[in-house]
C-alpha cells in the first residue's frame, strides 16, 4: 500500500485537502488522531531495567527522511526499499499534542484501481479548535470528525455544536486522550429529581390520548 506522506500545519489543512480533492482524491478512507502527550513515557508497571535492555530492533539505526518523501510507511532499515517517511516523534514534550491523520485515496471508478494514496498529517494543539471541517468535500467526514471530537476532544472551527458519535452526550471527558485513565468511572445518568415525567430519559408509558 504505497502512500505519500505529507505534513501540513492545521490552519492550512483544509486548503491542502481541497486541493487534493481537486486532484482527484475522491475517497477519504479514514481520518483519525493520535495523542502524543504520553510519548516516551514509560507504561504503567514499568521495570526500569526493561527499558535499559537493548533490543536488536531498537539498536537499529533508523534512517529518517524528511516529511513529504514518497514510498511506503515507516519501515525498518534491514528491509531495503522501505524508507522511513517521517521521523519518529521526539520524546515528550512535542510541539503539539495531537496528530490528526487524513487518509485519501484516488479511486478509479471504472477499473477499481487504487491510483495512489496520500496520508496527510496535521499538528493540532490542544485548546481552541483550529481545523476546519471537510464534510463539504467528503460527506463521510461528518461522522469521522464526530468520532475524533468524541474520542479526543479535537474541535472544528466551523462545527461549534458538534455531537459525539459513539458515546452519549453526558459522558465526561474524551477517552482516547492519554490522560484519561482506563479505570475511570462515569457518573450514572438518568432523570434528575424534579424532572417532568414526559422527559425522554424517563422510562414511562405514555397515557392514551383522546382524539377529538
Amino acid at each position, binding site marked *: 500500500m504505497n502512500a505519500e506522506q505529507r505534513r501540513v500545519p492545521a490552519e492550512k489543512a483544509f486548503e491542502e485537502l481541497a486541493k487534493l480533492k481537486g486532484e482527484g482524491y475522491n475517497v477519504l478512507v479514514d481520518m483519525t488522531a493520535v495523542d502524543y502527550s504520553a510519548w516516551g513515557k514509560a*507504561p504503567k508497571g514499568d521495570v526500569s531495567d526493561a527499558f535499559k535492555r537493548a533490543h536488536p530492533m531498537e539498536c537499529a539505526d533508523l534512517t529518517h527522511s524528511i516529511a513529504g518523501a514518497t514510498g511506503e510507511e515507516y519501515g525498518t532499515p*534491514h528491509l531495503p526499499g522501505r524508507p522511513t517517511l517521517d521521523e519518529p516523534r521526539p520524546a515528550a514534550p512535542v510541539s503539539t499534542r495531537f496528530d490528526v491523520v487524513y487518509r485519501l485515496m484516488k479511486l478509479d471508478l471504472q477499473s477499481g484501481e487504487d491510483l495512489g494514496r496520500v496520508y496527510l498529517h496535521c499538528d493540532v494543539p490542544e485548546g481552541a479548535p483550529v481545523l476546519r471541517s471537510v464534510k463539504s468535500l467528503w460527506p*463521510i467526514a461528518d461522522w469521522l470528525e464526530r468520532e475524533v471530537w468524541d474520542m479526543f476532544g479535537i474541535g472544528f472551527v466551523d462545527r461549534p455544536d458538534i455531537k459525539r458519535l459513539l*458515546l452519549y452526550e453526558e459522558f465526561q471527558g474524551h477517552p482516547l486522550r492519554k490522560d484519561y485513565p482506563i479505570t475511570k468511572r462515569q457518573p450514572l445518568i438518568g432523570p434528575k429529581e424534579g424532572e417532568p415525567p414526559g422527559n425522554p430519559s424517563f422510562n414511562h408509558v405514555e397515557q392514551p390520548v383522546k382524539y377529538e
Partner: protein
Amino acid sequence: MSETTETGRRRKSYLLNMGPQHPAMHGVIRLVLELEGERILKSDAEIGYLHRAFEKHAETEPWNNVVPWTDRLNYVSPLINNAGFCLAVEKLAGIVVPERGQYLRMITSELSRVTDHLTCIGASAMELGAFTVFLYLIKAREYIYQLVDNITGARITTSYTRVGGVKGDLPEGFAERTREVFQKVRQAIKDSDLLLTKNRIFMDRMEGTGVISKEEAAAYGITGPFLRSTGVPYDVRRAHPYLLYDRVDFEVPVGTTGDNFDRYLCRMAELEQSMRIVEQCFDQIPAGKHSLEVSEMKDAFVFQDMGKGGQTALLKKYMAKVDQTLAESGRNYRPDILLQNPSFVMPAKEDTYGNIEGLMNHFETVMWTWGIKIPPGEVYSAVEGGNGELGFHIVSSGDDRPYRVRCRPPCLNPMAALEKILPGSYVADIVPTFGSVNMIAGELDR
C-alpha cells in the same frame, strides 16, 4: 412538525424512532426517522450502543493480547480481523511470516468471509420473511464453524493469529473435510439461489431499493460488496495484494445498479470465489510436517517426568505428543507456520519445559514490559474484510504494547450513507437496505 407547501396543502411529518429495540435493527442501532405517511423525509442513525473501548483497551496490553479483542470487532468473520491486526504489526516490525503460515491465514480468512456472507444473506432474507433460506444458510455456516473450531478451538472467538505467524497447524485430514463441507455449502447456496434469486416477493423488496451511485459511494468511502454492487471492482485483495493473494486466481464480482438486489448477487458470487481461493490454497500450500514417527514422540507427561528426573540431555531428541492445533506446541512443525525469532514469538512448549534457554525465553515474552517490542513508528495496513477495507492504523513507541491502535471499520461508511440512501423510500425499504449494509455492531462501535 408541519409546514405549508406551495399549493397550500398542509404537510404533516412526524418523528419515529426505529430501534434500538427493533428486531431488524439487531438491537444496537437507532434510526431517527422523519416520516410523511410511510415515506422517509430524513433519517439519522445513532450508533454506539455496543461501544466497548477496543482502541483504549488495546493501548494497555501487550501486542499479542490485543488479538483476542480483534475477534470481537466483526464477530461474524473474526479470522480476518486477527490476520489484519497481525499483518499491521508485522509490517511495522518488518517481519515476514513463513509461507505455510501465510497460506493458513488465507485459508482461515476466506472461510471467515464465507461465514460472513452466509450470515448476511441469510439474515436479510429472514428479515424479508424467507425463513427457510435463513435455516439453510445458517446450517451451512455451522459446517464451516465446525471447520474453524477444528483449527482454532473456537467457533467465533478464534484468536488464531500471533505476531509472527499463527497459533497452530491444520488438523489432519483438514483439506478433505473442507472439500466435503464445501459440497454441502454449495448445495445450500444453490437451494437458496433457487428460492430467492427469481422470487417475485424477494425481488420486489430488493430491486431498486437502497440505490447508491458510484460517485456517492466513493464520497462516503464505501468499500467491499457495497461498493462493488455499484460497478466499481475495488477489492483490497486485488488492489493491494497482501498475504499470497497474488498467487491465487479469483474474480471480483461487480453489480451495475447499486441496489439491494445487486449487493445480494455480489455476495452470492463472492461466496463461490472465496471457496475457490481456499481450494487453490490447499493445492499450493507447502507441505507441513504433520506427524512424526511414533518412536520419536512421547506422551507429554512422560516428557515432563524425564525433565523432572534430570534426563534433560535426552529431551532434545524427543517431541511431546500433543495435538498440532494447540498453541505453542510442537517443535517439529512450528517453523513452517510461525516465525522463529525469539524476539517476537514464544518458544515451543518442548523447549519451555525442556531446557533453560526456552524457559527464560518464554518468561521474557510474557513478562510485563519485557514482551515483544515493535520498533517505534506508525503504520496503516488494510485487508479485505467481509464488508470492505478493514484497516489498522498502529502507532508504536517501542514499548511492549501499542501506543495507539485505530481500526477502520468498513461498515461505518455505509451506515453513515444511510442518511443519503433512505430518504425518499418507504419504511419497509429500510429492512432490506439495512440488511445489505451488513452492519456488525462489534465493528461499527468498537
